[in-house]
């Protein structure tokens, strides 16, 4: 797999858009790869407002309109995202990092597991550099939007990951967007409660557990995130 070193570092500063605008940043990043404008890109953003974000297919769930009203009245409007998974709260307590790459079909790079490791392993290395000894990738029982490739600290979910794949225009190559959402502040309860409120509103009996999640502030109370984040982006760019 070839990656051009011409990534635009101007996009590597942490942006503070609305959730809706942040999701649009992700989409624009993927589209830039699809249009053949670049081979690699990164974007980092933390919302200036808040929303509960989920794939659009959830709109078909019975009770969704009422759940949307309930969550809106709680101050958590529902928005849709282009990547897979299940509902995830977005707020200023979350930092999102999206990585987009052009992949050649038939290469070992062109599959999902590779994409998750391409995003998650540098993230674990960054945490180790910051002094976190037990960061790894894996699933977390009781966590919302669980998957096999969360970034975990001591078995608790710090970063949720998801992907979107699209064909590059006029080419057999594929564009991959891998997205990580890291809880950096607030307590896990504050976000888990929002997802559980949605679960109750759509009459889904599954509930999630705050003990399955961890925030970066809990793991590293004295961390200067603004100073540390560029090193994560450098690792993701140079992996």
């Amino acid at each position, binding site marked *: 797999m070839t990656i051009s070193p011409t990534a635009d570092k101007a996009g590597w500063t942490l942006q503070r858009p609305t959730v809706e605008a942040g999701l649009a940043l992700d989409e624009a990043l993927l589209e830039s790869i699809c249009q053949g404008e670049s081979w690699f890109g990164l974007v980092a953003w933390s919302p200036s407002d808040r929303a509960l974000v989920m*794939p*659009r*297919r959830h709109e*078909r769930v019975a009770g969704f309109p009422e759940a949307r009203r309930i969550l809106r009245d709680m101050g958590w409007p529902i928005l849709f995202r*282009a*990547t*897979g*998974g299940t509902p995830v709260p977005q707020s200023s307590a979350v930092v999102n990092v999206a990585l987009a790459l052009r992949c050649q079909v*038939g290469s070992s790079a*062109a*599959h*999902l*597991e590779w*994409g*998750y490791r391409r995003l998650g392993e540098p993230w674990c290395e960054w945490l180790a550099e910051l002094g976190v000894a037990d960061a790894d990738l894996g699933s977390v029982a009781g966590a919302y*939007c669980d*998957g*096999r*490739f969360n970034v975990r600290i001591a078995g608790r979910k710090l970063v949720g*990951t*998801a*992907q*979107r*794949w*699209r*064909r590059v225009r006029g080419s057999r190559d594929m564009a991959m967007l891998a997205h990580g959402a890291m809880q950096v502040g607030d307590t896990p309860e504050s976000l888990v409660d929002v997802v559980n409120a949605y679960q109750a509103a759509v009459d889904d009996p599954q509930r999630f557990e705050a003990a399955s999640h961890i925030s970066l502030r809990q793991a590293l109370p004295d961390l200067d995130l603004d100073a540390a984040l560029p090193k994560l982006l450098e690792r993701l760019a140079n992996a």
Partner: protein
Amino acid sequence: MSIVITVPDDLWEGDSEGVITAWLVNDGAEVAQGDLVAEVMVEKAQYEIEAPSTGVLSITKQEDEVVEKGETIASLES
């Protein structure tokens, strides 16, 4: 002539199942080669599926149905 539309068989390892999350074109509609026709989700990844040729779409797997890699989800009649 009938051309089938399948879930990619080399996108992920193992035997995880996917689900059709959206048909972007109605059953019976005419599509052109390269048009986006469907989205499949597996392992929290959304994958867009294109029409491999021009033709009239005949959907065999509906939204929210579970699919395996390599499985036929529709055909195109030209």
